[in-house]
Every structure is written in C-alpha cells, then in structure tokens.
C-alpha cells in the first residue's frame, strides 16, 4: 500500500498526460503521439489506484476479470465500427461514462466508509453535495446520450418531439433536482437519493427529444461536455486530482465544440436546447416555389464532361455522402480528375455531417490527404476562381438565402459560396428541402446542374464516364 501523497502525485502525472493527449490533436502529425500519452495516463491512474488500496484479496481477481471483459468488448466495437457510424458510437460511449458516474456515486452513497466520506446516514455534507451533483449530471448524460444514439442510429425519428408545457416541465424538474439535493443533505435519506437519480434520467430524455436531427452536432458536443462535468463531480467526491483535471478538460472541450457548432449555424445555444427547429416548416412557400421555378437536371455524362473540361474543382461533401457511403467512390472520381491535371480540393462546412469533424474522418478513411481538405474560412474565397463545385450530400450549408433573405430561418449562418463557381453540380435524390425545411435557391440558378440520384451511384457513374 502506498501513501496518499504518493498516489496524489501520480494522479497529477496522469492528469498532465491527459492534457498532452489533447494538445497533440493540434496537428495530425502529433496526434498519434498524443493518443499514446492518453493511454499512458490511463494506465498510471489505474495502477496507482490498485496500489493505493493495497487490497489483493479475491475481489481483485474479479476486478481484473470485469476490466478485461469490458476492455474486450470495447476493443471489439472499436475495430468493427464503420467510420460512418462514428456519431452514434460517440453518443453511445458518452452514455457509458454517464452511467459509470451514476454507479460510482451510488456505490459511494451506499458505502461511504470505503471512500473516506463518513458513514451511512452521516456522510460529510460537501461530499454528499458533490456526489449528488455527479450522479444527477451523470444520469442526464446517460439518458440524453441514449436518446441521441437512438436518433442518430435511425431507430428513433430524427424529427423533434415537442408537446405543450415541455419547457415548463423541464424547468420544474430542474428546480426539483436542486430541491432534492437540498433535502438529501438535510435528511441523508436513501429514498431521496434514488428519486434524484430517477428524475435526472427523466430530465436527460426530455432534454434531447425536442432537438432535431441536424442539431445533433451541438447535442453530441453538449453531452460530451456533460460527461466531463459528471466526472469532475465524482472527482471532487473521491478527492482525486486525475478525475478533477480530466473532468474540467472534457467539460470545457465539449462546451467549446458546442459553441463552434452553434456559431457555424448562427443559432444561439439556448435556441438549440429549446429545440423544435425544423419541425414546422413553411410548407406552402416550399410548394409553389417547387412548381414554378425551372430546374436544369443532367446525368453522369454531362457531369463528367463539365469536370473534364474544368481546371479546378471544389468538392463540397455533406451528411448525404455519409449516408450513401459515397466517400470511396468520390475518391476514385477525384483520382481520375487529378490524372487529367485538374486541381481538386475539398470544402468542409463546420456542421457538415452529424458531429464535429465527421466529414474529415470519412475523407481520411477514403485516403484523401488531409492537406487537400479545407475549412470554410480557408476556402470560401476560392469558389469565385473555380470552374466546378461538386456538392455531394450537402444542402443547407450551401444555400445563398442565408446571405440574402433576412426572413429565412438560416439567415446569417455562414455558408459556402458555392454559387460563385462557374458551374455547380448538385448531387441529390430529389428537390426536397434540407433539414432547415427551406428551399435551396441554388437549385434554380442558371449555372446549377442537378444530378438526381443516390450519391454513391451517381459518383460511380461519373467515374465510368470519365474514362
């Protein structure tokens, strides 16, 4: 058994290694090394925990067995999961962190002696507050992530579920959580603790169901943040530096990502949380526009011809590319274009896809070098000097309405200036509006050629026609 001071130093070391793990992600070159720092930090934390308890009875073998069972499961998932399913995987993982936090808090509540927190019925006040916050946030993270997972997986409809009095109910439950924590501190009653956990589960569900499919990048980032705060809450309870540092890192990381995502959609965080966006779209205006305006549509042959004669092409991928799994076909197409000495770059909107950085991972999977992929600010001026924009699976993020029509729900959202290209190829299955429920003016521009087809099928056809 090692002394508490000694283990505290090692927990600090593992906290620092976690900071270095995140630091590594500032560039793809250093990122792999960063990941090893993270793994080292985790190993140190676990070993120090074993040593500081110094209990090598039979229970230790069970701990190791359960650790290996979980590890094998995790490794299996990590190797099997397709990259397109990354958003739901991350949501699923968040739910596990949340639930683990709840269970650790429950264990600490039932057996406070083991954690040096006092005795059953007489837990130290500060610890009680910390563990109930950890449990509540953990429970919200768990049930919220489950809902996000179901929506992303398509098991549950991605459209917002709203009912009257929803916000009032959430407010009431939120106040209820604080009231319960207060009474828990006064009475130390186990029943109140259980009710607290149950209500927090409920809040998590209610919080996420009104949020629509394309707001998912914000939701995932937000739940990421929550899982961090839950971990920090437990860290305070256990007086563990590694957990406190990690919780703070993860919490602020998720918060920053949510902020970036909200900004990229020009929406306030509050309006995303309140949800309901895209639920009641103005169906009338959509219809008459569709009926009146002429649309030019083409086939793979036209598209291939246009691109062959271009000198520069910008690809704009979106969620539709992920759904159709078109990234590999796209890469093939780009290879052919490059052989003809055509300059090809990729433009990625921050909210393309269902989670931050989703498109980048998919392109990386298809062996697209990361230095050909550009963020919105870096490439937006290039559209004016390019011949062809190839929009595959993106929609709202290219809609010029965001710049021109102050009445539009997406007005003010930064968009890719696709229409400035000499010609625009727009791969889409139909003219249906995107998630924001509004028509894309781009469809009706003179220089736009619509390619109505499944993204993967169309791309493959273009590849054939490029020969």
């Amino acid at each position, binding site marked *: 058994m090692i002394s508490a001071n000694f283990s505290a130093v090692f927990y600090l070391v593992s906290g620092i290694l976690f900071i270095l793990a995140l630091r590594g992600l500032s560039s793809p070159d250093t990122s792999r090394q960063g990941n090893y720092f993270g793994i080292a930090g985790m190993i140190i934390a676990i070993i120090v925990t074993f040593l500081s308890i110094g209990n090598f009875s039979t229970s230790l073998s069970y701990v190791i067995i359960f650790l290996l069972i979980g590890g094998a499961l995790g490794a299996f998932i990590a190797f099997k999961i397709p990259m397109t399913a990354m958003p739901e995987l991350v949501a699923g993982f968040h739910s596990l962190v949340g639930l683990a936090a709840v269970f*650790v808090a429950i264990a600490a509540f039932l057996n406070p002696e083991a954690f040096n927190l006092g005795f059953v019925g007489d837990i130290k006040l500060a610890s009680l507050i910390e563990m109930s916050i950890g449990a509540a946030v953990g429970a919200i993270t768990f049930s919220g992530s489950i809902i996000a997972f179901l929506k992303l997986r398509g098991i549950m409809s991605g459209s917002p579920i709203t009912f009257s009095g929803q916000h009032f109910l959430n407010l009431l439950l939120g106040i209820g959580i604080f009231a319960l924590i207060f009474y828990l501190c006064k009475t130390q009653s186990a029943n109140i603790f259980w009710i607290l956990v149950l209500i927090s589960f409920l809040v998590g569900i209610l919080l996420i169901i009104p949020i629509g499919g394309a707001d998912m990048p914000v939701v995932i980032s937000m739940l990421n943040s929550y899982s961090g705060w839950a971990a920090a809450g437990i860290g305070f309870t256990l007086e563990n530096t590694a957990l406190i540092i990690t919780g703070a890192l993860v919490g602020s990381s998720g918060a920053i990502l949510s902020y970036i995502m909200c900004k990229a959609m020009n929406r306030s965080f509050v309006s995303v949380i309140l949800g309901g966006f895209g639920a009641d779209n103005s169906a009338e205006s959509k219809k008459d526009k569709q009926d009146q305006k002429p649309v030019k549509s083409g086939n793979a042959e036209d598209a291939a011809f246009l691109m062959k004669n271009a000198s520069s092409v910008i690809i704009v991928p979106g969620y539709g590319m992920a759904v159709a799994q078109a990234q590999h076909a796209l890469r093939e197409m780009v290879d052919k274009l490059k052989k003809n000495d055509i300059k090809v770059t990729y433009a990625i909107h921050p909210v393309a896809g269902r989670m931050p950085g989703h498109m980048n991972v998919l392109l990386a999977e298809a062996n697209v070098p990361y230095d050909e992929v550009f963020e919105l600010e870096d490439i937006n001026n290039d559209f004016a000097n390019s011949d062809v924009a190839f929009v595959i699976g993106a929609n709202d993020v290219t809609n010029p309405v965001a710049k021109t029509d102050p009445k539009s729900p997406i007005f003010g959202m930064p968009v890719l200036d696709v229409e400035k290209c000499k010609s625009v190829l727009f791969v889409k299955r139909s003219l249906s509006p995107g998630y924001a429920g509004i028509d894309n003016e781009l469809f009706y521009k003179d220089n736009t050629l619509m390619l109505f087809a499944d993204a993967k099928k169309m791309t493959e056809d273009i590849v054939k026609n490029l020969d």
Partner: protein
Amino acid sequence: MEIDPFIFRLSIFILSIFIGYYVVWSVTPSLHTPLMSVTNAISSVIIVGAIIAALAGTPGDIFDVSSIFGYIAIILAAINIFGGFLVTQRMLQMYKKKKDKKK
C-alpha cells in the same frame, strides 16, 4: 485558520478549465471527431472510483450491493477506455499527408 483542502481541489478544477479552454481551441477542426472520442476515453478515468468501490467489499462478502455497482461501473468504463483509445488510434492512422509522388 487553515484552508479547507476543498479550496485546493477547486483551484485545480478551475485552472484545468482554463488549460482545457486554450488547449481545445488549438485543436485543428479536422480532428474534432478524434477529439471527442479521446475526451470520451480519458473521462473514463472515473474507473478509479469504480475500482475503489469494487474492492471495498469485506472478505466474507465481496459482492455486497455497493461493490456490485462498482463492478458494473468497471465494465462500463473499461468499454470506454479500450473502445475510446482504440477507435481514436484507428481514426488518427487514417490521416495522411499528400504523397510526394505528384509531379
């Protein structure tokens, strides 16, 4: 009067939020997905709490209620640790620079 150790922990917490703030802003947007999966993995360091809970059972009764919660939490956190780090590694392996074969 002595300072409550809680204040020290609070200081660590708040300073770490600042570190997190600056470190995460320097993460390149193309690595935001690996960022999420790795933060997910490291927040599973909550496993230390689970291990303490699981090992707290008395020798005669290693499966009392609070240890059982500890054991389950170990499984959950372990899925995350292995899954999170490995899937991050898998993603990072895919990020490649342009090869120099181009003219």
